[in-house]
């Protein structure tokens, strides 16, 4: 218990020394709060409510981000869209992390035919552009949010297999792992106590980066009409709907786009910050 405390404190200490890490964390935090607001219905209006008298209004005190061609409040819709994006991405990345890390660590540690099999299969997955594969899966599964999440999760699993497997191969060759075997420790113990803590850092970094890619993929799918269906808002769909309107109602395009960009920038900065904070080589200097 004490052990853990010190470790996280140390990493946090180093994390807080990186400017980009702090900026990223703040951006992501804002977006998460926004999403949570939407979960509890703390939005100015119902996202699907049509204000017939206020079609295509510019940003104002009543409608902070203006209204769209159905008179719906863009601000409320953006919040709701952000919540959907985050829900899908977090579910997808959790799935990919659990599957990928388990198979990656096992493949790296067990080696031999199992490693061959896992790398071959993940190579096959890798041979696809992610969005295309997700597209195919969504096309046949359906477009409920969990279908999208499942599709993105499957597509990102091989990334986590690679990220986990690589360091395991390196760590496995370290002298302290050999010594653990001579000391008669079980494989499970070696994996849990000696290998996992040492491959943890790249996985955490990858989670942050994958979340950002997942958000891009999710909004890309819904932009193509293969994700969330109208009238439920989603950021990609809002951009798609804004295409014919943008010329005279810039706010319909700008705000959802801005939210996607902010959260993706934030997650990338968090990833960079984590990479620096969790790398013992950079710390010791």
């Amino acid at each position, binding site marked *: 218990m004490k052990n853990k405390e010190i470790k996280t404190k140390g990493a946090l200490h180093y994390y807080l020394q990186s400017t980009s890490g702090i900026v990223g964390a703040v951006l992501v935090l804002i977006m998460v709060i926004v999403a949570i607001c939407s979960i509890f219905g703390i939005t100015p209006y119902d996202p699907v409510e049509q204000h017939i008298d206020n079609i295509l209004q510019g940003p104002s005190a009543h409608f902070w981000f203006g209204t769209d061609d159905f008179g719906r409040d863009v601000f409320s819709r953006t919040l709701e869209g952000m919540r959907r994006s985050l829900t899908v991405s977090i579910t997808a990345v959790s799935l990919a992390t659990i599957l990928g890390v388990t198979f990656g660590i096992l493949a790296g540690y067990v080696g031999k035919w199992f490693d061959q099999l896992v790398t071959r299969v993940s190579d*096959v997955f890798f*041979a696809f*552009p*992610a969005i295309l594969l997700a597209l195919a899966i969504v096309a*046949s599964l359906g477009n409920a949010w969990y279908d999208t999440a499942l599709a993105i999760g499957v597509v990102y699993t091989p990334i986590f297999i690679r990220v986990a497997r690589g360091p395991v191969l390196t760590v496995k060759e370290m002298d302290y792992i050999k010594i653990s075997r001579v000391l008669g420790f079980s494989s499970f113990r070696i994996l849990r106590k000696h290998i996992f803590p040492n491959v943890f850092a790249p996985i955490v970094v990858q989670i942050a980066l994958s979340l*950002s890619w997942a958000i891009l993929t999710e909004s890309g799918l819904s932009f*193509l009409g293969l994700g969330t269906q109208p009238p439920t808002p989603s950021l990609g769909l809002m951009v798609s709907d804004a295409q014919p309107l943008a010329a005279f109602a810039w706010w319909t395009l700008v705000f959802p*786009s801005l939210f996607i960009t902010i959260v993706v*920038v934030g997650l*990338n900065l968090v990833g960079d910050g984590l990479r620096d904070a969790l790398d013992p080589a950079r710390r010791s200097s």
Partner: protein
Amino acid sequence: MKIPGLSRTLSVLATLFGISIFVFLVLRVIPGDSITGAFGIETGALTPGQIAELRVYYGIDQSLLLQYISWIHSFLTGKLGFAYSTGVSVATLTKSSLPVTIELAIIGTVLGVVLGIAIGMFSAKKPGSTRDFAGQLFGLLALAIPGFVLSTGIVTVMANKFHYFPNGYEYMTPWENPWMNFQQMMFPGLVLGIAVAAPVMRTTRSALLETVDKDFVRTAHGKGVPNNKVQYRHVLRNSLIPIVTMTGIQFGYLLGGAVIVEKIFALPGMGRQILDAIMKREYATVQSSIMVFAIMFVLINVATDVIYRKIDPRIKK
């Protein structure tokens, strides 16, 4: 004893085989078939007899294995299967759409690599400086602004403010009308190029910074080699390996990005072909088109590997 490239070829074939099975299963096993695709909710109104007939018509009454074999057979015999609704062979569709996507991909890759390496070098020259910050900011934004946002923005501004929108006209191949083709490809190519440039820039920057601290760079300085020569001959040359890897990986994402860009800029490429087929539930078309994509990607990987061997003498064997 050993035939050069044999194991390589075999592993490429094995990967393609795996892909074909995977694509097939994803689109067949999962509920929803061509009938529901074609008739939508009206499927419920069909009699069992009609459904059985339709199943025969679409070839989905057979076992999965037979379906797979018949698809692969038609794929390999050059027709790539048929689109059920129009009866046109997928090969015919692909013949006109593949060149569009390839042209787009080449423009995107070249732009992305040139831009990415240039900005990466610009950034790495003085780590921590203002120019480094500017370079990194570009990388970050290029990574974070989705292609569809950038494309929509470009279309909006160009079409409405400048009344310039070449993609509004019918698509022209470079042979029919090179100038028109260039104008039509310019913006979608730029959008893809920026998407490729971001990771290439980041890789270039970190590879350069890492190589600068290597022993052999110190040796070169110690020999009295002029600084600019050290940078090009020793630092950049050794940084190319990760840059090539990253470019190869990006090619896959680029093909994915093509789907979105082709839709927005109304280019009749592979991406749009797949999208249309998905909307119409033309499984054979989707399957075969995705196979074509996969083959392209695998071939790019082989090319990356060949370039690798050219750059790095250590992996000759």
